[in-house]
């Protein structure tokens, strides 16, 4: 047991060593084999070749962050709905599912749990609605 574990870790360590070593070797090769010719143009910001206008440290409106946060909530909701939809047949069957046929009675566990989940999110939606975070005003 101990010997097996040691050899397992050894191969993993070798893999990590090879990966890090390869990356370091390529970086060193680029440094020593590649020519370095710094110039003013290379230090200049890249804007598709155009002159730079203004500072990149511009200020954005807080509305963008509101939208991003609200989007995150509904995005995760969608992400959870997909696996639920795939398992819905099994969740609605009290017995075992053979192929596409349910051998037991009807279970309301699947629809119930998603209604609870959606209910919590609807409370969240009502909250952001009341806080006037969904409009763009």
């Amino acid at each position, binding site marked *: 047991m101990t010997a097996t574990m040691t050899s397992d870790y050894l191969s993993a360590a070798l893999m990590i060593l090879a990966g890090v070593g390869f990356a370091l070797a390529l970086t060193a090769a680029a440094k020593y084999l*590649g020519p370095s*010719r710094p110039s003013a143009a290379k*230090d200049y910001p*890249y804007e598709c070749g155009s002159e730079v206008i203004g500072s990149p440290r511009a200020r954005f409106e807080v509305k963008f962050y509101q939208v991003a946060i609200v989007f995150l909530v509904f995005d995760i909701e969608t992400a959870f709905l997909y696996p639920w939809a795939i398992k819905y047949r099994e969740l609605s069957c009290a017995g075992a599912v053979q192929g596409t046929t349910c051998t037991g009675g009807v279970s309301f566990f699947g629809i119930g749990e998603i209604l609870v989940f959606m209910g919590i999110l609807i409370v969240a939606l009502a909250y952001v609605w009341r806080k006037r975070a969904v409009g763009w005003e």
Partner: protein
Amino acid sequence: MGFEFHTTSLQAAVNWARKWSLFQYPFVTACCGMEFMSVAASKYDIARFGAEFPRFSPRQADLLIIVGTITERQGPALRRIYDQMCEPKWVVAFGVCASTGGFYQNYGTMPGADQVVPVDVYIPGCPPRPEQVLDGLMLLQDRIQKGEGHSQITIAAERGYDVPIAAIRPKELKGP
């Protein structure tokens, strides 16, 4: 003598690595872009030559492909992008417009992108067929292997090597 042999074979190995790992910056301005897409897509598959990966930042690219007409106003932008690319770098003029100005006979069109950047390979055609582009790429690979790219010659001359041919160096642009 031994050291000399060592450097030349090392240079050959480096150039071999360079010619099979070109990172292209496609400067696509006109209809030749369709043929460029065709070359990049699966049928003609520029990936067979190790040049499949377009980088949309000149910092990560060493092959500038000028695809389409260059106008006088675009010239400074093209030159700045060329200046910002990694070295050594190569330039391919894709189609007659990038090579010579093509059928445009007006004051707005630059008569060839080599007015502002040193072009290594000119690919004729309006637009060129994908086979012609691959042929041009292979020509470029030969030049890279021999160290005959304009940027390679410039670097070699700076390091004090004897260079058989002079590199074309367009005039410096004003400003960064």
